[in-house]
C-alpha cells in the first residue's frame, strides 16, 4: 500500500492582526508602521505537531469537537493554506468539497458556472464538456441549467457545487461536512458516489460530526482535539474514545451548572403549584440536605448515565434536633419541565418516626429507563403537611445517553416478539 496523504509533524499557527482592527494604510504610512503592521502580532495554534498517513484507496474520517483543528487539517491537505511547520505531502489530483459552489457567480447561468467551476478545480474545458451531462444529471438540475445561479434555491446551488466537485474525478477527495446538502435521496446518491470512489481505489478524507457516517464509510479515523491528535486507527475504537471524552466534558459542564445552581439558590417561598418549574431552594433547614450525589454503575459519582443503568441518588442529611415528622421526596423533570417521575416516602406509605444528627438517604433506581436527554432533579425533605425543611428545586442536572434514539420520556424494558414468518435482516 502506498501513502496518498502524509502529514509529518504539522503545525499551523494562525496569525491574528488584532492590534490594528481599525488601522488604515494612511495611518500606517503616517506612523511609519507599515512593515510592522504587516507582521502579525498575535498567534493562535490551530494544529500542534500532528502526523498521520492516509493509505491510497482508503477512506479516513477526521472527528473532533468544534475548533479542534479538523477543517484546518483539511485545508492544509488541500493546499489552501500552508503549514507553519512540518510537511504535508499529497500524491494525485485533489478535489476539495470544502465549500460547495464557492466561486459560482450569481449572475451567470448554471451551465457557464459548471464550466468555470470545473476549470477552477483543475479540469480542462474539454474534460468539463465530456462530463457535463453526468454533472447535470447528478445534480438533478436539467431544467434549470440555463437559468442564472442567483435564481437557484440553496439546495440546488449546493447540489450543483457537489456534482461538479465530485466529477472532477480526483485521486484524493477531501470532504468537509457537506453531506447535509440535499434531501434524503440526494444524500444517498452522494454516499453511493463515495462508495464508488472507494471501489475505484480513490482516497477520501472526510471531516464530519456525523459519527455514524464515519463508522459506516471509513476504514480508519483520526480524532483531533485542541489541535492535537488524540487517537487514530480503527473507527469504532476512535469513536469510542472520542465519545468517552465528550461525556467527560459534559459531566464537568453539568457539575459546573449544578454547583452554580446550588450556590446561587436563594431561599425563596414555594409557589402554589409544586410543578411549576423554577430553580431554587427553600425551607426552614431544621432538617437539611447537605449534599446530593448521583452514583452510577461504576460506583463513582457521575452526572452522565446510559439508559437502563442503575443509579442511586445519595442524600446526606443533618438534623439540628430530633425530628419525628418528615417525608423524603425525589422527582425528575425533563428539559420541557415535564415531571417524569416523582415520589416520596409518604406516598409510599412509610411513616416517619425519628431522625437525629447526620444521616444518609439513598434512592436507588435499578434501571434508569429514561430516553436520551437532559434531566433535572428535585430532592426535598418536608413535613407530612407539606411545610418544607429543605426543598431543592431542580438544582441538579444529569444526562441520559442511549444508543437507540427512541422518543418520549420513558423507555420501559421491552422486547419484540414476531411469528416466524416475519423476517428481519
Amino acid at each position, binding site marked *: 500500500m502506498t501513502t496518498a496523504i502524509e502529514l509529518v509533524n504539522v503545525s499551523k499557527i494562525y496569525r491574528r492582526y488584532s492590534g490594528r482592527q481599525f488601522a488604515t*494604510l494612511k495611518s500606517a504610512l503616517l506612523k511609519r508602521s507599515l512593515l510592522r503592521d*504587516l507582521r502579525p502580532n498575535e498567534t493562535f495554534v490551530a494544529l500542534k505537531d500532528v502526523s498521520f498517513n492516509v493509505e491510497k484507496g482508503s477512506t479516513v474520517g477526521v472527528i473532533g469537537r468544534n475548533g479542534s483543528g479538523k477543517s484546518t487539517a483539511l485545508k492544509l491537505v488541500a493546499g*489552501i493554506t500552508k503549514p507553519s511547520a512540518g510537511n504535508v505531502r499529497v500524491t494525485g489530483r485533489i478535489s476539495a468539497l470544502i465549500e460547495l459552489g464557492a466561486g459560482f*457567480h450569481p*449572475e451567470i447561468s448554471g451551465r457557464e458556472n459548471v464550466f468555470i467551476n470545473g476549470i477552477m478545480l483543475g479540469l480542462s474545458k474539454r474534460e468539463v464538456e465530456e462530463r457535463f451531462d453526468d454533472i447535470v444529471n447528478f445534480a438533478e438540475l436539467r431544467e434549470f441549467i440555463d437559468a442564472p445561479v442567483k435564481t437557484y434555491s440553496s439546495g440546488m446551488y449546493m447540489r450543483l457545487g457537489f456534482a461538479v466537485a465530485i466529477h472532477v474525478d480526483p485521486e484524493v477527495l477531501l470532504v468537509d461536512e457537506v453531506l447535509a446538502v440535499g434531501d434524503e435521496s440526494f444524500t444517498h446518491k452522494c454516499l453511493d458516489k463515495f462508495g464508488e470512489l472507494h471501489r475505484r481505489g480513490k482516497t477520501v478524507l472526510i471531516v464530519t460530526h456525523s459519527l455514524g457516517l464515519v463508522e459506516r464509510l471509513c476504514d480508519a479515523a483520526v480524532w483531533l482535539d485542541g489541535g492535537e491528535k488524540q487517537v487514530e486507527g480503527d473507527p469504532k475504537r476512535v469513536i469510542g474514545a472520542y465519545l468517552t471524552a465528550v461525556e467527560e466534558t459534559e459531566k464537568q459542564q453539568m457539575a459546573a451548572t449544578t454547583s452554580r445552581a446550588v450556590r446561587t439558590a436563594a431561599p425563596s417561598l414555594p409557589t402554589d403549584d409544586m410543578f411549576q418549574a423554577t430553580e431554587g431552594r427553600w425551607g426552614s433547614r431544621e432538617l437539611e440536605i447537605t449534599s446530593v450525589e448521583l452514583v452510577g454503575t461504576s460506583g463513582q459519582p457521575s452526572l452522565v448515565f446510559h439508559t437502563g443503568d442503575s443509579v442511586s441518588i445519595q442524600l446526606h442529611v443533618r438534623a439540628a434536633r430530633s425530628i419525628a415528622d418528615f417525608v423524603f421526596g425525589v422527582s425528575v423533570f425533563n428539559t420541557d419541565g415535564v415531571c417524569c417521575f416523582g415520589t416520596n416516602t409518604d406516598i409510599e406509605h412509610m411513616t416517619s418516626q425519628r431522625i437525629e444528627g447526620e444521616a444518609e438517604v439513598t434512592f436507588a433506581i435499578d434501571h434508569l429507563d429514561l430516553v436520551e436527554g437532559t434531566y433535572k432533579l428535585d430532592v426535598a425533605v418536608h413535613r407530612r403537611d407539606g411545610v418544607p425543611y429543605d426543598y431543592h428545586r431542580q438544582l441538579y442536572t444529569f444526562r441520559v445517553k442511549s444508543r437507540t434514539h427512541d422518543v418520549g420520556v420513558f423507555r420501559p424494558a421491552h422486547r419484540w416478539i414476531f411469528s416466524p414468518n416475519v423476517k428481519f435482516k
Partner: protein
Amino acid sequence: MFANLGTLLRYRGLVQSLVARELKARYRGSVLGFVWSFVNPLLLLSIYSFVFTTIMRSDDPRTRPYALFMFCGLLPWTWFSASLTDATSSLISGGNLIKKVLFPAEVLPIVSVLANMVHFVLGLVILAAFMIGFHHYPHAAALPWFPVVVAVQLIFTLGLALALAALTAHFRDTRDLLANLLTLWFFATPIIYPYFRPSVERFLWLFRLNPFYHLAVSYQEILFFEQFGHARSLLLLGLLSIGTFLAGYWLFDRLRDSFAEVV
C-alpha cells in the same frame, strides 16, 4: 517566486474563462448588454468633447479634431484606472475562492486587468470608426509600435494591480486612497491637454517622471500625430514596467499566505 510565475502559465485557461465570466456577468441583466462596452467610452468622450471644445475652448490647431486627439489618450487611461480600481477589490470580492478553493490568488487581479483590456480593445473599434469619420488616419510607419505600447502598459498595470490587490487585503482604505490618487494622476498626465503646451514644457522634467506620461504621449504620437519620436523613452519605460511587474509580483507572493486569513 519564479516557480509560482511558472504555474501561472498553467492557469491561462482559468484566466481566460474568468475574464469571459467577468465580461458576461457585468452586463447580464442590463437592457443594452454588451453594447455598454461601446456606449460607456462614447458617453465619456462626448462629455469631455463638449467641455473642452465648447466650454473651455482649446485653440491649438495641432490637436484638431480635438475629440479624436483626446480619445487616443482617454482610452488607455480608462483601461489603466479601471484595472487598478477593480484589482484592488478583486481579492476581497473573490475571498470565497481564496479561502475555500485551491486557487492561485494572483489570477484575480490579473483577470481584472485583462477584462478591462477587452473593453480597451473594443474601444479601439470606436476609435477606428472616429478616424474614418474625421478622415484623420495614423501614419502607417508608426503603427507597428502600437502593440509595443499596449504591451508596456499591460505589464506596468499588472505590476501595480498585483501590489495594490495585496495591499488592499491588509489595508481596506487603499481603495479610497487610490481613487483620489487616480484623479490627481489623470490631470497630471497630458490626456485632455497636449504634451507640447508651453505650460507643460516648463515642467517637463516633472512630467517625465510620470510613467503614464510616456504611455499617453506614445499613444498620441502613434495614433494621432504624424510621427513617433518617443520610442527611446517607451522602451526605457518597458524596462521599468518589467521591474514594476516583478516588484508587484514579489510583494504579492510575500503576502500570499496571509490572504486566506485577512480577506
